[in-house]
């Protein structure tokens, strides 16, 4: 199934990719998606190494969240607004 990956801030810069359509196995978790991306390139491995928050369809989620077809999964660092 296909999902969309989005990245922001340092995670976007280090991965070198702001948006990506990705094929993953059914019943994959966010942790599986991270594993998949880390194997794509060293840049992705570096971007997802540590201190990254995850969101599924624009709501923060945990690593054991199961993803569904057409989900938007986002990775970004802790926020610094205000």
């Amino acid at each position: 199934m296909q999902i969309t990956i989005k990245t922001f801030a340092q995670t976007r810069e280090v991965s070198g990719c702001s948006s990506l359509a990705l094929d993953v196995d059914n019943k994959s978790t966010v942790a599986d998606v991270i594993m998949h991306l880390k194997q794509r390139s060293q840049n992705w491995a570096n971007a997802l190494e540590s201190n990254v928050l995850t969101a599924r369809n624009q709501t923060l989620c945990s690593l054991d969240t199961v993803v569904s077809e057409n989900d938007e999964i986002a990775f970004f660092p802790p926020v610094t607004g205000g």
Partner: protein
Amino acid sequence: MFVSIQEGDFSPHDLHQQLYSLASQKNAGNTGAIVTFTGLVRDGNPSGKIEGIELEHYPGMTEKALKLLIQDATQRFSLNSAGAVHRVGRLYNNDQIVWVGCAAPHRRAAFDGACFIMDMLKQSVPLWKKEFVGDESTWVETKVSDEYAAMKWMHPSSCALDNG
């Protein structure tokens, strides 16, 4: 309530009027206090001077998270109305970044509501700040003091006014 994520500048006076008008419509005569906060770009950090910042956001999620935060504050402090505006994109020293306003029957709820929104905004709304000095740019790291300010709301306590 109202929220906005925008590139353009805002008028604190107009936003105050908008909040006043909303609070009056909802609960005419019951609003006894309006507290507003405006955040500006400082010209430096502990390492030295900066020339400005760039704010990145997650279109869609940022608006959603800010709206949820305002709804949470409204319920938690029984506010008559509340609003927040946050700018994104390139900003320069002394520019306005953020505005928060709370209307309530009494001043304590309005002050606490505004403090709560600012403390939680720095922890829960997807916004990322990058500072510029010449051609160099550096992402701002999360501050322990900001985390502490947000965590304080988990326990009954006074407002953390020292975390700007």
